[in-house]
């Protein structure tokens, strides 16, 4: 049976660069997929594009492409990534320019388009899930609207001979599903195969999270050499079953435990993992160790797709101001608590209007918000005071109030930091798939 080897080049936008180069050089892979687009990233990228029409793609695109393109070109490894973010065409142009500079003549780069649906959303018909209101009644400054595209546009670009494919918003697993559809000739209504291919994509999409990253817990779950963590490879068969492995000699581990954790990562009902192309079913997946750092995955399934695409709406939500200060030694918690009480009073006294506020002591109750405050006294605490405001000028005053605790607050406060930022947040909704036209633009180096 035909098999292909797919490697993950990145599991998030800030991921390490070298593991992708290692995979390209030594992984004997056919495809290298970079997943670099978090929920909010595309909204921020859209703002960057509004300021500069040539911007709006992933800031690390150039570094990643420079690192891997020469090897990928030499070994005929095809690259797929959502580093196009809000501007896949500009990302493709940049990639072509890099390829020319590196002498990679003839490299074909495709930009997959159609995810940007800001102009086609009906203000009255499009419903925001979170607020159960229409887009018009949502009444916020919307900066972006992007539909999660399925594998179709990427498959079309592969059929047209693209060596590098850059998308904007695509469902993360779809970037891994596309080469399986293309290589094995899967039908777009073979729900079992699409479900299995989605499973492979889901397991690979977070890179090192299946090879021992986000897993280590010393003494209980030890992982070797995390500083040189190897990224995953899936050996996929034409029947959609796969072996997850990693490059020999790299750090990390692939075990049934790492695969089980990743299987359920960001999954709700395991029977219904809703994707643009299929509703994947992970409920009967079998995970079996077949060798060192080799785990066999089988039993994935699928049901017909819903016919709707999820759309992420980026909007200007609010501003957040924050300040922090530390207290140490005996009485640190009490002095931290006194400082929080002072800050609460200062909001009224200084006339600062808050939409929402949060005061906590890191080391005591910043994560466990309902923590028992009388448990053992820590050596030090760090106060964190954070406030949602209507505007940035007000947000800036929060840090100033924390800073003023130096001379006006409890004894021994030190190490103030402060920041204020505008918040672009995300809500979502569903769009009938026939309203979204996916296509690609091809360019050549």
């Amino acid at each position, binding site marked *: 049976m035909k098999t292909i080897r797919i490697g993950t080049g990145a599991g998030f936008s800030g991921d390490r660069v070298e593991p992708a180069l290692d995979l390209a050089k030594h992984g004997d892979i056919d495809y290298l997929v970079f997943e670099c687009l978090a929920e909010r990233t595309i909204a921020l990228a859209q703002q960057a594009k509004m300021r500069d029409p040539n911007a709006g793609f992933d800031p690390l695109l150039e570094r990643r492409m420079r690192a891997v393109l020469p090897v990928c070109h030499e070994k005929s490894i095809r690259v797929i990534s959502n580093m196009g973010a809000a501007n896949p065409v500009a990302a493709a142009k940049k990639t072509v320019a890099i390829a020319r500079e590196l002498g990679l003549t003839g490299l074909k780069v495709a930009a997959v388009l159609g995810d940007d649906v800001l102009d086609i959303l009906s203000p009255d018909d499009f419903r925001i899930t979170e607020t159960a209101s229409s887009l018009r009644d949502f009444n916020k400054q919307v900066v972006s609207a992007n539909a999660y595209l399925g594998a179709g546009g990427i498959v079309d670009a592969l059929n047209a001979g693209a060596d590098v494919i850059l998308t904007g918003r695509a469902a993360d697993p779809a970037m891994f599903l596309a080469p399986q559809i293309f290589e094995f000739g899967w039908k777009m209504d073979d729900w079992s195969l699409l479900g299995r291919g989605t499973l492979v994509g889901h397991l690979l999409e977070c890179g090192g999270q299946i090879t021992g990253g986000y897993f280590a817990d010393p003494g209980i779950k030890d992982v070797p050499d995390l500083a040189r963590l190897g990224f995953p490879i899936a050996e996929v068969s034409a029947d959609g079953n796969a072996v997850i492995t990693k490059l020999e000699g790299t750090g990390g581990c692939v075990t049934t435990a790492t695969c089980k954790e990743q299987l359920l*990562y960001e999954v709700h009902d395991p029977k219904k993992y809703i994707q643009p192309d299929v509703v994947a079913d992970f409920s009967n997946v079998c995970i079996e160790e077949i060798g060192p750092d080799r785990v066999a995955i089988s039993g994935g399934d699928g049901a017909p797709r819903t016919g709707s695409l999820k759309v992420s709406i980026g909007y200007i939500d609010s501003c957040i101001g924050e300040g922090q200060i530390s207290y140490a030694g005996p009485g640190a918690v009490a002095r931290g608590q006194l400082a929080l009480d002072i800050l609460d009073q200062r909001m009224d006294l200084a006339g600062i209007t808050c939409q929402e506020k949060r005061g906590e002591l890191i080391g005591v109750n910043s994560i466990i918000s309902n923590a028992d405050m009388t448990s053992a006294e820590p050596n030090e605490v760090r106060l964190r005071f954070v406030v949602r405001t209507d505007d940035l000028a007000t947000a800036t005053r929060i840090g100033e109030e924390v800073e003023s605790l130096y001379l006006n607050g409890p004894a021994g406060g030190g190490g103030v930091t402060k920041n204020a930022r505008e918040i672009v947040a995300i809500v979502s909704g569903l769009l009938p798939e026939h309203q979204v036209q996916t296509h690609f633009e091809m360019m050549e180096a």
Partner: protein
Amino acid sequence: MLLRDIAHSRTGDKGNISNVSVIAFDPKDWDILQSQVTAERVRAHFGAMITGPVERFELPQISALNFVMHDALAGGVTRSLALDPHGKCLSSLILTLDIDKSNP
């Protein structure tokens, strides 16, 4: 005994929903997970940190449970005021649940 002695966990986020897996190290402990790590106990364990309902899904073939906790992320990762807006730390906290090993 703590849940941490027999199981491991990972958290994921989607909007204002957190999912937390609980996976037995040894399939022999599946019965304990199934009977003792209920949605009600998980809901009570997190207390006021979660304001919505908790659902539980079972995956016996991999000895795992998946908890879906609604309204668990202080408004969701893109607008939350929390220090850990993704709720990444919740996986470590669920493992502090008490387990009675003598009574599966």
